[in-house]
Each structure stands twice: as C-alpha cells, then as structure tokens.
C-alpha cells in the first residue's frame, strides 16, 4: 500500500495581490499526525481549503493513495474521505448533537429519517474513539470542547480517513486541549491520518509526528518533531531567532494606580455573581496578571473596570478617584486603555478602515476634528505614523478595511491604538490570542516597555506560558474570586494549575 495517503504537489494558489501558496508540496503519511506550522497569513488555511475543495489551485496536483484526484468542492473531498474541522465550528445551534452529526448525510427511507440507525452508528463511534457526548443535547447547551467533539464525530460518521483540524485549540481551555490531544492520538491509533494546523509550538511538539513549515506561502521544509526543537521550528517559521521569554528587569513598582475594593459584578446569564468581593491593587511599573481558566469571572471583572458592565457593589479607585460610576468615555480620557478579549466583538469596527479604527477613541479630540467635521488628513497622518511605528501590515495601508486584514495585524492595530493612547493603566486581555510566536514576542516587548516607562499593566491571560513569562505578580481567579497571589519567580506551572482549578487556595488579601 502507498505510504502517503495524501500528497499535495506543487500547489500554487493566487489571490489578488497575494500568492497564498507558492509551489507547496506536502505529504501526509498513513496513520500520522502531520502538523502544518506557520505565522498568521503564511498560507496554512489556504492550503487546507484547497485540499478540502473550497479553493481551486492555479497550479499543482493532489494525489490520494498515489492516484491523482480532482477536488472541486467539499462534496468531492467528503467522497474521498477527507474531512475538516474548521476553526469556527459549522454547527446548527438549535439542533441536537445527533441531528448535527447526520446533517447532510442522513439515512432516509421513504422520505423519513432513520434516526435509530444513525444513533447506533454515532454511539458506536463515540464509544470506539472515547468521544463522550450527549447525543440529545442542543449545541447551544454544550461547551466549546463538546462542540468540537461533535465536529470530530461528524467526520467519523462520514467514514473520513483524512482529518483536517484547523487551529483546533484556539478556542479551548488547557484541560480541553489535553483531552483533544489524547483524542487525536487515539484517532491515529485507529488508522486515521491527521493534518493539524497550528502555530502553537508546544502542541505540535506534544502530538505531531512530523511538521511542515510554511512561511509567506512557501514551503520551508518538513521535519520530524522528535528530531527538532521548539527553537528550531520557530526559526523556520519566522525566519529569525525568536525569544520565547522576553528579557525584562525586575519590576520597580511605585504608586498605586488602581485599587479595587470588594468588587462584585452580576452574572451575565445567571443570577450567580460572576465576580464577588474581589480586592487588589495595581501599581505603576508592574505587570499584574490575572490567571485563570476561561469563564471564571475575568471577562466580567475587566468589563466592570472599563465600564462596559456595571459593578454591583464595591469600589474602583483609579488614581485616587472613585470611578465606579463613571462613563466609559471618561474612564478612557482619565487614562485607562483596554485591549479587549475579542478583537472582532469589541476591538474593531470591521467595516471601518484601519485609519478610522486607529482613532476609535480619539476621533472627537481637538487634533482630529474641526468644528464637528472629522479632519481626515490629520487622521490619515496619525494612522500612517502608527502603521509605521508598529509595523501593521495590510494591502492598502491606512485605507484598508479592517475586515480585510489578517487577525495578527488586526490585533497589532488594537495594541498600537491602546498603547499610543498613553494610558496610566493598560488592561490587556489575552493580548496575543491567536497570534504566532513572532507577533507574540513583539507584543510582549511592547508591554514590558510600557511597564518600564512607569505604566501600570493589568494582564488577563489564559496561556500559562504568558502568565509565567510576563507577569511580576500573579493573581489567580477561580469562580469569580481571587484564590491566590503568587510570585512567578517562586512558583511553578503545576502549582499555578492547582490554583486555577480550585484545588488550592490561599486567602491572602493583599499584604500591604
């Protein structure tokens, strides 16, 4: 039998103004986990979309089991046993798990659905691969990790043997990531072959057999993960040496900038408080990190600090002034900058140009308006300066529509805007979410630089590496409360994990 189940040879895919894949060749062996590594915009997703039939390449051929095949649309791909889990799940939210799995591949007899048969098949599959799901639950009611299992079951139900995972861990919690890694290993053990798109080196080293690196649309090479290191991979990916740990001096905290006293925030969906009785301080010149598993009240805490959600009780003292009831605009003007959790939801007006987005918090200021009219030349000039300074890349510079930019550059735009706001307090929520190592390094440097200039930084992160590397103090949040304060120099990832999962807590109020 042919060793390579899938072979993509000399694939070239051109978009207007961009060669997304330039003569890329990649071989997927039977029964391996093959990682596809590259920066944002390196062409990983494009290549997989070619394989899945969503794009037609200009040049190149695809072989399955040594035979050349033509894949014109996803139906062709499915017929060839190729399945894909997209980064954003393709599920019908008010359907049950079972209905979603069979959708598009229903067994029908005389116009009636044969659900019992489908149920048995799905139940068998979920047993065989250890994918536990409640078949009758609505998608709306299950966690993101569960939804992903549904997506995987969808592929298995269609008897796919080549499984493509497009950045499957981007939306998952650390626990869910571990579970997914195990599931992937089980799948290949059962004879499936997996293509795994990621830019997270740890995951690739942990789970993949081989790794192909793309950079700017070109194939840089394929390596066995057992014979390489994270450093080597990242150098292949970025084209230069990358520092995983940003060099920084010891913090030199001075005056208190932000003080929170017994802050509580109501829940968004339930009556349970999402944040209760939280107190802490952030000083000039330090990076305080709030660590925790997603959904333990970090988002709500930030929304209360920035004014997006009201505080239920407690006080927020900013620069010796109670701002608990202040408007968002006044908090901004007072010197709070906020890199939001979700750049599409809060961070950007996607249909505005880059320039318009860069003045999102400044458009009304004297510099950018003239008797109620926007001073477009001034906006443009300011935008060009930020683009240059922060190296924000896009197809049409300041006039690019934000929606057309890559995720990494969108994030850079937000970081540029917020840092250039010259705040006294920078609240950065997952500032490197979904970014590659090169961009992460860059943003981490910026944050440390801000700290060294005497800014107070409140960092909220789900990435343990980021927490350990960047912070000067760690506060761990669990179920809406702060369960511990740790010194990153004297703690370990394992200990941090115990606090995050609620297994350990120290009830220290800030000792001052």
């Amino acid at each position: 039998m042919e060793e390579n189940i899938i072979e993509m040879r000399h694939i070239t895919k051109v978009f207007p103004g961009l060669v997304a894949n330039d003569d890329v060749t990649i071989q997927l062996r039977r029964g391996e986990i093959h990682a596809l590594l590259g920066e944002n915009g390196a062409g990983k997703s494009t290549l997989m979309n070619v394989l899945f039939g969503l794009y037609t390449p200009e040049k190149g051929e695809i072989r399955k089991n040594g035979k050349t095949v033509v894949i014109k649309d996803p139906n062709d791909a499915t017929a060839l046993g190729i399945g894909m889990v997209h980064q954003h799940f393709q599920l019908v939210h008010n359907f049950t798990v079972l209905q979603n799995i069979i959708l598009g591949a229903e067994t029908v007899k005389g116009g009636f659905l044969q659900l019992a048969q489908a149920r048995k098949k799905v139940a068998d599959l979920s047993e065989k691969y250890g994918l536990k799901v409640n078949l009758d639950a609505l998608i709306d009611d299950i966690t993101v990790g569960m939804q992903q299992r549904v997506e995987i079951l969808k592929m298995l139900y269609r008897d796919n043997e080549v499984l493509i995972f497009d950045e499957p861990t981007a939306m998952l919690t650390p626990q869910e990531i571990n579970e997914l890694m195990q599931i992937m290993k089980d799948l290949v053990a059962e004879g499936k072959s997996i293509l795994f798109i990621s830019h997270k080196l740890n995951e690739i080293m942990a789970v993949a057999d081989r790794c192909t690196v793309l950079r700017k649309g070109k194939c840089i090479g394929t390596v066995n993960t057992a014979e390489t290191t994270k450093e080597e991979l990242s150098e292949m990916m970025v084209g230069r040496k990358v520092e995983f740990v940003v060099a920084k001096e010891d913090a030199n905290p001075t005056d208190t900038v932000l003080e929170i006293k017994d802050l509580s925030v109501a829940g968004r969906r339930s009556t349970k408080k999402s944040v209760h009785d939280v107190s802490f301080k952030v000083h000039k010149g330090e990076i305080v990190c709030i660590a925790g598993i997603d959904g333990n009240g970090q988002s709500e805490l930030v929304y209360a600090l920035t004014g997006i959600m009201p505080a239920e009780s407690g006080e927020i003292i900013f620069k010796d002034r109670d701002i608990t009831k202040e408007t968002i605009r006044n908090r901004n003007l007072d010197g709070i900058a906020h890199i939001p959790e979700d750049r599409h939801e809060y961070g950007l007006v996607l249909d505005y140009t880059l320039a318009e987005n860069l003045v999102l918090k400044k458009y009304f200021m004297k510099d950018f308006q003239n008797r109620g009219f926007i001073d477009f030349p001034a906006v443009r000039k300011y935008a060009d300066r930020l683009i240059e300074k922060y190296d924000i890349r896009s197809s049409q510079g300041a006039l690019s529509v934000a929606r057309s930019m890559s995720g990494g550059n969108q994030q850079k735009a937000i970081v540029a805007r917020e840092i250039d706001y010259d705040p006294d307090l920078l609240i950065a929520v997952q500032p490197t979410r979904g970014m590659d190592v090169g961009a992460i390094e860059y943003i981490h440097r910026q944050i440390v630089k801000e700290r060294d200039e005497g800014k107070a930084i409140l960092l909220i992160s789900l990435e343990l590496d980021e927490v350990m590397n960047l912070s000067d103090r760690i506060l761990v949040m669990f179920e809406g409360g702060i369960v511990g304060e740790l010194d990153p120099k004297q703690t370990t990832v394992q200990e941090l994990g115990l606090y995050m999962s609620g297994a350990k807590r120290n009830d220290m109020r800030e000792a001052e």
Partner: protein
Amino acid sequence: MKKSSFRNNPALVGLLASFTAIFLGLVFGFFMLGIFNPSFAGAGIVKILTKGLSSKEKFAKVLYQAAPLMMTGLSVGFAMKTGLFNIGGSGQYLIGTFCALLFGVVLKLPWYVCLLAAMLGGAFWGIFPGLFKALFNVNEVITAIMFNWIGLFLVNLAFSNTPTVLANYYGASVADRTANIEAANPSAVIPKLGMDKLFNSSYMNISFFVAMLVAATIYIIIDKTVFGYELKACGFNQKASIYAGINAKRNVVISMMIAGALAGLGGGIYYLCGTAQYTIEKVLPAMGFNGIPVALLANSNPIGIIFSALFISYIQVGGEALQPEYAKEIVDIIIACIIYLSALSVLMKGLITGLLREKGGNQKEVIEEAPLEETK
C-alpha cells in the same frame, strides 16, 4: 496599481450592481407585459422607458414625485447606515403630513414653517421606536410597524375632528379630505419660482431642489462629521462603539429621530405642493414604504438616493401611461423585481468583482507580489 484600485472600488461595484438589477428587472418586466397583453408589450416597455422624458409636463411630474420619495428613501437609508431598519417611514410621513397641514391650513403659516413642523412631527414619531430599542432592546421594526398604524389612525382621527382643516370648510362638497391648500392658505404652497410656467405644469416647484439639498446635507453628516462617524460606528458594531465610549443608546434615539424627520419632511413636501389633498382612508401611504426600495437600490448612499428616487419616480410615471392596455400595478411589479434583484446585491457584487478581475488579468497580481520574494 490604478487598475487594481478601480477593481476594488466598492462604490463602483455597487453602482454596477444597481444597474445590473435595473436592467434585469426591466427585462423581466418586458416578459410580464408580454404575458398580460402580448400585442402591446413592445410599445409598453418603450412607454415605461421614455414617457418620463416625452414632454416637459411629464418630466415635471417625475421631479414632483421624486422629491417625497427621496425623503422617505433618505429616511430609510440614513437609518440603515446607522444599523437600524426604519420601516416606520409611513407613520412618520403621516405625522409630518399632519403637522404640515395643521400649520398651513389651520394656522395659516408660510410653507417653510410648515415644512419645519413636518420635520419635527416626523422626528417625534421616530423617537418611539428609538427609545424602545435603546431602553428595552425591542426591535425597532416591530415598534415602527405598530407606530405606522397608530400614526395612521391618529392622523385620521385628528383630521376628522378638525373641521377647519377639511375641504368642505373651504367650500368643497366633500369632507373626506383636507382642504385645497391654494384655497386655504396660498403662502403655505411651496414656491414655484415661475418653473410651473417653464414646464407648463402645476406639479413643478422647488421641492425637488429642497430634497436634493437635504440629501447633500445627509451625505455630509454621515461621511464628514464626528457625529456621523459615531452613528456609523454604532451601526457597524455597537459593542465596539460602546467600548470606544460612544453613547450608543443616545445615538439610536437620535438616529431614529433624524430618520423620522426626513420621512416627515417627505409628507410635508408632498402635500404642500398644492396639487394633493390628504384623503382620510384606512391605508398606509405607499410613499413611506417606497422609501425602502429607493434606499436599497442606492445602497443607502445619500447621493445615490437622489438618482434612485428619480429613477423610480420616472418609471412610475411611465407606468401610469400604460393604461388602459395594462393595469397600473404592473409597474409596481417591475419595480418590485428590480428591488428584489438589487437585494441580491451581494451576489451581484461578487459577480461583477469576478468579471472585473478576469479583465484585469492575473499577470499583474503576480508582479505585485514580487516584494514578498525579497523578504525570504
């Protein structure tokens, strides 16, 4: 580089999409004419396309109808730009009509005061959907539809119980409509500046130019001002605008007020021409709803709305000339087709972008990519 900016120009693509929709709609209309009365189909489609320009009088009629259409179109388009769907144009138009006629016929005030009153009336009626949306997050479509009917019956009730506004008070025999405004208060008639003689039509006055001025103003507000920047930000992404410190709730209310004012002005313009009398009926005025196609066809662009209002008015005039061979409603069907096709504008835009790209050629794009090679 120039060619690629031409290709990526969204305004141009939008324009082409609208023209394609119009063309396909007319083709469909031609088939409709053929089905209903084959022997007149050829003459019919020619009439639709040429009647509006066949004489000065007809052209005056086109302008006369275009003015209020433009206002209700602007009303819908403005709201659309700020992320709201104002389907309450009819109600606002009616309240505007009421205020204009009250000020003109009963209070005997001059036309510009009446138009101002019409705007204020419409704005007042726009507040409600805005407030409900801002305070209770009730979809503005639902509130606006209900306020259309509330507006209709309120206006009918008010007119019926205001004897001094009705036609019979000024000597006419009927009481089911408002007074002829020329007879009641000539100063409330929108000035004609002699254009009625020039065009040989009593329909001709300055209302079309007033409407154009308003369209230009709306364009400037939306695209050039700080206020417009805020409104559009709320429309595109309300959460991001809240994050940026914009008072999104206030903006929703203001947006709906402005949209209401525009529709109200439309009512004022129409009924202060001196040619129309408001008839007390249980039907919502079509003018309010026709603003929706006008805005859709123009992609909500205020300057585009000037032209789409003109166009729709133009083929309406053409359609009236189809009688007696065809029912007048056939034009409404054709317009509906054009709108339906322009509602598929996303599809249309995709097609047009694709066509332009093929023409542009791929070679160039590869050349543009050259810098990427160096960075390796």
